[in-house]
């Protein structure tokens, strides 16, 4: 009897501990379309995550209009769409279990690096509790706590990716300030040198007494 209960407790805990689908914040380079797939175990799971376009060349053109993000369910329906954005958080309740497709579309030819994070979280509800009477209600609270901590971790990954993007912008601004200022000085020197040379030519012997 004792061992039966122990077995069920371990079973319940195994069920609980397997409820989080997670991937570390990976970066992928998007040339045209890049798709990432993630498996959702249960219908009704909350899929949350974020993505940030990390580096972008803004040297000669105006700021890149951003990339499009499309999430498709295993049935082929589009669950979420975000157009023309440089970084967003997303969250939705999975309408069905299965393989979800997360696609990034780059409308321009310059490749962009996108850093993304996807998390699938499940909290056992009353239905799961009713199915297995040895599942302690405290496990539900623990699952909720774990999901709350996961949301903090997700926010941190988002902040880290945005910090990386700002760092890129800052370093590019820093380099450009120096480069453009030195170029400006050289151009100024060259322009005044050319002015002097021209005036000298105007007053040269062969031309002067006839024109000036």
């Amino acid at each position, binding site marked *: 009897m004792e061992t039966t209960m122990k077995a069920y407790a371990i079973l319940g*805990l195994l069920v609980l501990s397997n409820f989080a689908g997670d*991937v570390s914040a990976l970066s992928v380079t998007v040339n045209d379309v890049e798709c990432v797939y993630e498996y959702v175990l249960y219908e009704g799971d909350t899929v949350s995550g974020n993505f940030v376009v990390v580096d972008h060349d803004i040297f000669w053109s105006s700021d890149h209009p951003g990339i499009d993000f499309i999430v498709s369910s295993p049935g082929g329906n589009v669950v979420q769409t975000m157009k023309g954005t440089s970084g967003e958080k997303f969250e939705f309740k999975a309408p069905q279990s299965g393989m979800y497709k997360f696609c990034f579309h780059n409308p321009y030819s310059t490749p962009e690096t996108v*850093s993304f994070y996807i998390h699938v979280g499940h909290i056992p509800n009353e239905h799961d509790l009713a199915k297995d009477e040895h599942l302690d209600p405290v496990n539900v609270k623990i699952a909720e706590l774990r999901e709350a*901590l996961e949301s903090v971790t997700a926010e941190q990954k988002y902040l880290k990716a945005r910090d990386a993007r700002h*760092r890129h912008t800052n*370093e590019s601004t*820093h380099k450009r*300030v120096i480069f453009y200022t030195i170029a400006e000085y050289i151009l100024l020197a060259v322009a005044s040198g050319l*002015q002097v040379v021209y005036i000298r030519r105007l007053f040269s012997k062969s031309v002067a007494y006839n024109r000036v």
Partner: protein
Amino acid sequence: MATKLAWRAVIVFIWWCIITTTTQAIWLDLPDSGTKCVSEDIHNNVVVLADYSVINNQEDSHLHPAATISVKVTSPYGNNLHHKENTTHGQFAFTTTESGNYLACFWVDGNHRPGDRLTVSLDWRVGIAAKDWESVAKKEKIEGVEFELTKLEGAVEAIHENLIYLKNREAEMRQVSEKTNARVAWFSIMSLGVCIGASALQVWYLKRFFHKKKLI
């Protein structure tokens, strides 16, 4: 009898957990030619654990052998951490010694039919997610609610460390911004000085020139 059934259920479930744990990874589509790379910016002294395998979802997979891929993992300074050719699955683990962008690249080997969509399942765990909780449970002999709470405590510590890291990064970036700001101000004033200096030089030179030409 009930005990036996219960333990059998546990074993079946453990087996299911192992199967589904492999689907907690992300899937990537590999192009027919060229490489597909994923990267992550990781800081120093962090454990990285990764597992990759080729997903064979063709109907005639029993007729044709599975296509093979090659993998290469490099550190930010270019050191090769893991390199494997002609493989359908594998795993690698390392502790980071440099802070920077770690790159894992996959490409398809030449011996496969063109037109096939090759999918790789990658389970990439960094830091706290790579921690082996089973061995911790065995060593400390904890189980049940206490075990779950220990995992949560680990997660909270990881959050704390990440926060400190973000704070330091933000402080570095603020320094760069303020340096840029100061430089913009200085260089603009200096460009005014350069302008005035150039025009003064011009005037002096032309005066000397006209004196020499006896025009003034």
